């Protein structure tokens, strides 16, 4: 990898200041950024490691749900008694990201700021009526992901936490790529009263909500309600792992499986 200057600030203010350097990049757990640097696909001038900032860490139960610090690692979310009690489907999702070693390093904030189209967390962020909290504002989860590897964040903006709303019931299922462990397709279903949200990751250039599946489940909240409900393959991802048509098919299949994991 190319040389860079490494910093580990102890406060958010110091991190924000360091981020003003030209081509500075934030370092979460590094499970995507470091492989990217190793391949010389990026050349940041500065790497600003957020690991020493206590304010960015931990799970807190708040009115109506959970607030999880941006530098909380996947393994911590997966094993958190609070997350398992309040939103068990979220603990299940976090506990199945990548592999065990990746989960020991990777962070919530790093995952969503990177906005990989096949990452797991974006499905939860869109399904669970979230608010992404940054060092300067609050961004609704529905508006956070704007495209492939693109978000609503400004270049010098730092995600500090995500607030998740507790659903009545939720479930997540993914069809895993066995080599990369990313989602070929992952579907998060969440029910809030009469409202049903179905967020799909892996299938398109960015996470999206599946309107047809939401309507079917809002009318009848059972897996069987999805029988025959098709998703349009137009605009979905196609690569060596799966065609767009296959991914479209998997969306309904994974939604049904998610309904089988409701908690």
């Amino acid at each position, binding site marked *: *990898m190319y*040389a*860079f200057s490494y910093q580990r600030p102890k406060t958010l203010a110091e991190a924000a200041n360091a981020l003003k350097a030209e081509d500075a990049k934030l370092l979460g757990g590094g499970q995507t950024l*470091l492989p990217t640097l190793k391949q010389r696909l990026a050349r940041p001038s500065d790497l600003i*490691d957020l690991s020493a900032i206590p304010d960015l860490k931990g799970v807190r139960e708040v009115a109506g749900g959970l607030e999880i610090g941006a530098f909380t690692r996947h393994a911590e979310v997966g094993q958190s008694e609070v997350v398992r009690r309040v939103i068990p489907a979220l603990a299940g999702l976090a506990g199945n990201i990548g592999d*065990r070693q990746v989960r*020991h390093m990777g962070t919530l904030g790093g995952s969503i700021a990177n906005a990989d189209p096949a990452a797991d967390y974006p499905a939860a962020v869109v399904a669970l009526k979230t608010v992404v909290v940054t060092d300067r504002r609050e961004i609704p989860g529905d508006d956070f992901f704007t495209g492939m590897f693109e978000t609503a964040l400004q270049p010098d903006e730092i995600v500090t936490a995500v607030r998740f709303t507790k659903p009545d019931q939720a479930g997540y299922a993914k069809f895993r790529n066995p080599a990369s462990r990313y989602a070929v397709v992952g579907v998060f279903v969440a029910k809030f009263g009469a409202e049903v949200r179905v967020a799909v990751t892996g299938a398109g250039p960015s996470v999206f909500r599946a309107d047809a599946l939401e309507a079917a489940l809002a009318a009848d909240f059972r897996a069987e309600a999805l029988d025959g409900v098709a998703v349009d393959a137009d605009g979905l991802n196609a690569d060596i792992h799966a065609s767009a048509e296959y991914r479209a098919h998997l969306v309904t299949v994974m939604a049904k499986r998610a309904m089988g994991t409701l908690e």
Partner: protein
Amino acid sequence: MPSRVTMTVNGKTVSREVEERTLLVTFLRDHLGLTGTHVGCDTSQCGACVVHIDGRSVKACTALAVQVEGCSVTTIEGLAAADGTLHPMQAAFREHHGLQCGFCTPGMVMSAVDLVRETPDLTEQEVRNALDGNICRCTGYHNIVKAVLAGAEAMKAEPSRIAAE
């Protein structure tokens, strides 16, 4: 830019000047001469480079040495007792022939020790699922899984030693 990094490796404090881009695995192998930690794929997939940072398994090819400043690192060289007595998990890999070429073995053993520390009672299926971050190119999984299950039982019998790590 060179930077001084200090950490505990296998119980000893080490401090070196390194370039900030130095990977943890490079630090361990090239700077400290601890070549038991292997580089397999170098793309975070295979797990041959797994070490423990503060007791948790991570891929040393996907961490910077400077990120580990102040932490305690255990490598495969740090598992056996000072008198050479193998760690129960190492002994189980030998007993059950949990290796063919042996290249993936250090990572397999380090992942297994961390797994059993967190979940002492494991089923065969749980072991298979939990080892998905470690790849054996010889496909010797059958004996690896047997070794992990036997190692888990042996670790229960030696709780004091495991706690001391």
